[in-house]
């Protein structure tokens, strides 16, 4: 164990050193290859231009290499793999897509994903907005925000253990040690095995993600609320608007853009939800979602790269509109510079 720590520390130092060395050395080589002689002004300016042309690519090189190898190439490869059989060796046309449409588990996953998409982003944004408005108005609001924001730091696996303990069910006459069942028992209901209740168990899993992500929505929306020009609110107060009217008619419309950003960010996260389902149910009891089904097919029976590529492509297709919108926004911002 000690040797592992030592070697990890060594790697960190060596890695940083190698990186720094690359940038420093490549800059030096550039200066040697394209010298700037003092006596020959023409040659000097030509070489200075050459340096300026090459240098950006030296700086960008490692980053571009990583992006191409780990993201660009795999996206293209996954697209092609979806037309090949399980080993990726034989072309099978649309067979994998046909399989997906007819597969009951795939349809179940699509249905569950839509359910997650309908509930989680809306719930997080709503709770986040309400909590942001409330905490902005009290002196210990920042402390409250910290506490609600805290689950953001917890891993999905850790959060799953935390919530599994809340949903814990004990059979027979044993004492219920899960909080939910204890509450249900205290108000006269009968304890349930929550995570295997068909259909409703999806919502018990969603609660975990809502618990984690509400803090994120709250932080972003709170900053947006503080950015609202005070004159608009003052004017509304003078005109005799009620708090409710000010909230819905003055504040919400002004932070509409931020709400959209929060909503889409959580939407992307929900599309990729994996850890929670894996640790809580592993897709049993009709809780399967696309990311888990995809992972399942990556290794099921030695792995089926064709089918799992189709499932990945569905997730990709769902984020593509958001991606295009983001790129357009970024281009617009750069145009404005």
């Amino acid at each position, binding site marked *: 164990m000690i040797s592992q720590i030592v070697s990890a520390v060594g790697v960190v130092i060596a890695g940083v050193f190698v990186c720094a060395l690359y940038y420093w050395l490549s800059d030096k080589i550039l200066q040697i290859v394209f010298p700037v002689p003092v006596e020959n002004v023409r040659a000097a300016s030509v070489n200075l231009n050459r340096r300026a042309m090459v240098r950006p690519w030296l700086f960008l090189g490692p*980053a571009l290499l990583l*992006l191409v190898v780990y993201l660009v190439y795999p996206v293209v490869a996954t697209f092609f793999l979806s037309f090949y059989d399980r080993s990726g060796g034989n072309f099978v046309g649309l067979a994998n897509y046909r399989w997906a449409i007819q597969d009951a588990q795939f349809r179940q996953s699509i249905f569950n994903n839509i359910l997650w998409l309908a509930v989680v982003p809306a719930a997080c944004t709503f709770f986040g907005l309400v909590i942001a408005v409330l905490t902005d108005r009290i002196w210990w609001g920042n402390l409250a925000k910290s506490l609600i924001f805290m689950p953001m730091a917890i891993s999905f696996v850790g959060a799953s253990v935390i919530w599994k303990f809340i949903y814990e069910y004990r059979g027979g006459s044993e004492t219920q040690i899960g909080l939910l069942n204890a509450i249900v028992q205290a108000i006269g209901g009968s304890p349930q095995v929550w995570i295997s209740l068909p259909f409703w168990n999806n919502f018990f899993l969603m609660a975990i993600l809502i618990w984690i992500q509400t803090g994120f929505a709250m932080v*972003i929306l709170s900053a947006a609320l503080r950015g609202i020009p005070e004159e608009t609110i003052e004017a509304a107060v003078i005109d005799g608007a009620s708090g409710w009217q000010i909230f819905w008619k003055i504040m919400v419309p002004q932070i509409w853009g931020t709400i959209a950003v929060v909503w889409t960010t959580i939407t992307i996260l929900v599309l990729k939800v994996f850890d929670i389902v894996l640790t809580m149910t592993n897709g049993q009891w009709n809780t399967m979602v696309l990311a888990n089904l995809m992972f399942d097919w990556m290794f099921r029976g030695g792995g089926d790269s064709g089918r799992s590529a189709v499932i990945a492509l569905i997730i990709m297709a769902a984020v593509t509109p958001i991606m295009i919108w983001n790129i357009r926004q970024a281009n617009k911002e750069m145009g404005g510079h």
Partner: protein
Amino acid sequence: MSAAASLRRIGLPRLIVHVSVLVICIIWLIPTLGILVTSFREAGQITASGWWTAFTGAAETSAARLGEPSTAKQNGTNYVISGSVFEGGKGGTVRAFGTRVAAPTEFTAGQPADIGNGETLTVNEDGSYTYSKNAPFEGRGKRVYLSVATPPSFTTENYRTVLTSQGIGQSFVNSLTVAVPATIIPILIAAFAAYALSWMEFPGRALIIALVVGLIVVPLQMSLIPLLKMYNEIGNFFGVPSRSYAGIWLAHSAFGMPLAIYLLRNYISGLPREIIESARVDGASDFEIFVKIILPLSFPALASFSIFQFLWTWNDLLVAMVFLGTGKDQLVLTGALNALLGSMGGKWEILTASAFITIVVPIIVFFALQRYLVRGLLAGSVKGG
């Protein structure tokens, strides 16, 4: 008057706001508190009572048999049996007792109870009892039911168990081995790229920025299959293990790269132009400008991103499951916890202690560096985990 101040004037009365925020905070805190408290309880107590009773002590229902009629002593007209209900068993504090299994808390401890048939039974809190009857006792010793409170007790034994015998200690080191290099390497690479994209003119710059922005949202799932194949082929070709720390460092660096470049470019391109141009006029090379001016000035952005990346790599399960082995020397905390959920389901003393060890590092990082985290979130809220 600030916007926040104007907000204070509108809407609900103050008290309602305070109470509702308090309720929300409690709801948000209770789940974590549950596993924290449970991780310090003994296994027996965890299953005997809910963790919320941990501080008041657990009330267990138990049964005891009073002394045989032959031990009765005559006292005037009464026959009396006395002794302790805890004979031969563990101690505790008797809260209540009863003579029927359906009503184990019928009578309060310390007060004489008329249980019919001319019999009177008193069970004191310390367990001693007096059982008297106005006629000789018959049959076997009487069965009584007790509600016994055991005092709250906490232990660190669970942590010792999981750290040593459940491999969580080793996994903790493994997680650090993954997360620290996977945080530092991408930052350096992304910072150079962000500088090039901000302050250097070259053809194709806009295209690369668009590519980076687009890649931010590409789901990890798209990369997994080809990369898994590629890693296996490289492993076979060179005769090295396909799942290694080097492999996951590069994978994490690459997956974090788009957001890193995006965040850092936003920050670096906003630095004042005069500083960089005057340095250029003074004859500083781009490398010198980067190291001596850009890096120190971009500290807030670097800090924001490194917190993101650290939390993301520490908390990640999917990438580790695909690119890292499940052997003892490679299993990270999230993977170990997931495995324990399968093998130790229901053993909450193991699960809660392991879970708490898993989440304690991110929580410390979170509270210590929350400022930078929030700043980063506000700057880059397009990715989402």
